[in-house]
């Protein structure tokens, strides 16, 4: 608050900050808690006593735990990685990559950082610690029960990596397709003031409100019998669309389209129309103006919209669980399946570990793209 008249008394600021802290705890607690649970043996994970869940005595009794030294060195490695990536990496990428191809440098840099971190954290660090721990006496004794066996069960024994692969296919397809179709439409809608454009937007708004289950009700019979009605066109090789990732990609792109074009339109309206007018004067037609003048400046909007398309595809359960068969299943329905099927607490903790595994990428996404997400959330609203 810049003005003195608006300055708040200390008590009010204190109350406000206490409430804010309370909200932060509420916001983060469920996520934090399932993360803690996923590292404990079932007895600890579902213990009624919070301290038992955190310290995990039963897990410790099974011989799975980490010592104070482990914790300190582990945090050190994580902190060192973060410091290296944020401080050193941008400079190195700028120095080593060619002009105009920095994005390629970033991809390689991030991949290298991830691989290096995994090797240091999971191979080198345990090896060093197994030597150091006995030497340090009380510092090296296990104090915190912690086990990664549930993650191993999920990813290796239960074939969750297959679901991960399917999710990857579906989300990549949805993001790429809906952005390429959506940017064209969003640009057209933003630059055309015609009544037709207005009606298109209204229809899109109505489509935005439709429940996906209604649409799936119509896809299902058509997709299941598609090899029959596609046969006259495609002959012998007519595919059954049911269970095919590409069919789901098309469906999700279409369901996503109303939202995408509204959002991209509002971003394009922020790009001054004088820019393409200038390009037109210089002899470009609309497509050239779009490609040479608008495309270089539209990336923030496209990235933001891409993030939301990604979230839609990644989070979807209704469409994917109904239209994909078991072997092409994506991660979210797979986790729900685990949760519903399993009755023992061990299996429940395995489901918890799977849930944490698919939440982690989202948290990284917010870390990296916080500003874009905020701008995306407010884009539709503030400009009406």
């Amino acid at each position, binding site marked *: 608050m*810049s*003005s003195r*008249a*608006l300055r708040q008394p200390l008590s009010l*600021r204190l109350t406000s900050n206490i409430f*804010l802290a309370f*909200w932060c705890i509420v*916001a983060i*607690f*469920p*996520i934090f*808690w*399932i993360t803690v*649970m996923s590292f404990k043996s079932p007895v600890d994970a*579902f213990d*009624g*006593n919070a301290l038992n869940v955190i310290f995990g005595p039963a897990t410790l009794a099974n011989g799975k735990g980490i010592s104070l030294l482990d914790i300190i060195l582990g945090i050190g490695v994580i902190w060192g990685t973060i410091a290296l990536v944020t401080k050193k990496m941008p400079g190195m990428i700028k120095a080593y990559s060619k002009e105009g191809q920095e994005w390629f440098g970033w991809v390689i840099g991030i991949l290298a950082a991830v691989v290096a971190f995994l090797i240091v954290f999971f191979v080198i660090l345990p090896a060093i610690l197994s030597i150091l721990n006995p030497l340090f006496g009380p510092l090296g004794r296990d104090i915190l029960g912690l086990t990664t066996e549930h993650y191993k069960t999920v990813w290796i024994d239960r074939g969750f990596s297959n679901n991960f692969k399917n999710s990857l296919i579906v989300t990549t397809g949805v993001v790429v397709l809906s952005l390429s*179709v959506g940017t*064209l*439409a969003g640009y*057209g809608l933003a*630059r*055309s003031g*015609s009544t*037709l454009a207005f009606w*298109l937007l*209204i229809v*899109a*708004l*109505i489509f935005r*409100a*439709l*429940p996906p*289950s*209604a*649409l799936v*009700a*119509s896809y299902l019979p058509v997709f299941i019998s598609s090899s029959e009605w596609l046969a006259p066109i495609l002959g012998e090789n007519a595919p059954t669309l049911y269970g095919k990732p590409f069919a789901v990609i098309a469906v999700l792109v*279409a369901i996503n389209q*109303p939202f995408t074009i509204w959002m991209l339109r509002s971003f394009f309206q922020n790009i001054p129309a004088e820019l393409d007018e200038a390009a037109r004067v210089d002899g470009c037609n609309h497509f050239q103006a*779009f490609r040479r003048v608008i495309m270089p400046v539209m990336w923030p909007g496209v990235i933001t919209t891409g993030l939301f398309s990604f979230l839609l595809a990644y989070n979807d*359960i*209704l469409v994917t669980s*109904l239209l994909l068969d078991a072997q092409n299943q994506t991660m*979210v329905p797979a*986790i729900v399946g685990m*949760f*519903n099927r399993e009755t023992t607490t061990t299996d429940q903790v395995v*489901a918890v570990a799977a849930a944490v595994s*698919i*939440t982690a990428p*989202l948290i990284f996404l*917010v870390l990296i793209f916080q500003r874009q*997400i*905020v701008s995306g*959330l*407010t884009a539709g*609203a*503030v400009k*009406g």
Partner: protein
Amino acid sequence: MNFRTFAAFVGPSVFMMLLFIAFPLISVFKQSFYVTQPIYETVEVETCTPGFLTQTCVTETVSQPQLDEEGKVIMQTQYVGLESYRNVLEPERAWRAISEGSWNVLSTINFWKALRFTLTFTLITLPLVIVCGLGIAVLINNAAQAIKGPVIFISLLPFIITPVIGVLSVNWLFRGDGILTALLEWWLNRDIALFAQAWTIEVLMMLYRVWHVAPFAAIVFYAGLQTVNQDSLESAVIDGATRWQRMKYIVIPHLMPLIIFVSMIHLMDSYRVFEEIVGFASQGYVISLQWLTYDFLVPDQAGNRSISRASASAMLTMIGIAILLIFPLRRTWRDHKGGH
């Protein structure tokens, strides 16, 4: 921009929406009047079991689906009029229940049960989301500049998390002797079974939804708070307005368009409530309209999907959406008229 260029730009998008949204809508409408099912025939089957001296034979009539030459079940599509709607709505039973005023009977019919929950869910969470969102936005706005970034980061987490996973994580906190149930039991000093009756599950669902959507509302309102005119706030202080009055007469009117926007989005989304039912596995107690359609689409034990009932229930669900959309559409139309 002339029409041809415009068409070239929006063409692919419009084509996709036509093919995958508009056309399916029409076909759902059509499907809801037809039923596709195997043709059954009644055959006499004689089953004989070896017995002493003579076989014991039993002849019974069984109805079984007809098979074609390849041994596949012959399916037949038949016009049934409003039959599917009747199956979903069960008007006679519903009417009897209403005229007797007995709510319990009415809530044994899935559709009415789902409708009741969907509406209460939507209407109760709406004010909560707005109030919590506004509160969080004001709190963030009040906080020191340095902690705003991290606080917004934390606030975004409930919004960004996969809805089903969010529901499941709340579920794990409460299920059985979950940590929060244990806390509640210790605090109230009595045994609590949160998943044994409908209303506690509904409360948990609403809590989850507010937790999930309030950050979105908060971010939007926070952006709006940045544009509040500081001069009018200051003059209000000089005129002796209290904090509450400033909030009520300056800030809230300024945020009104945003409040309407968030309400609309929230109404649309919470009317389609679905993930909560799946994540709490509450179908025994609480169901929603979208879940009802979904349930018809999931194959039953015999592997049949009741497509036509699903279509009917989807059409009925969409009546609610039509009512919901009248208000914003009228507003947009007025703005459009005014703008030209």
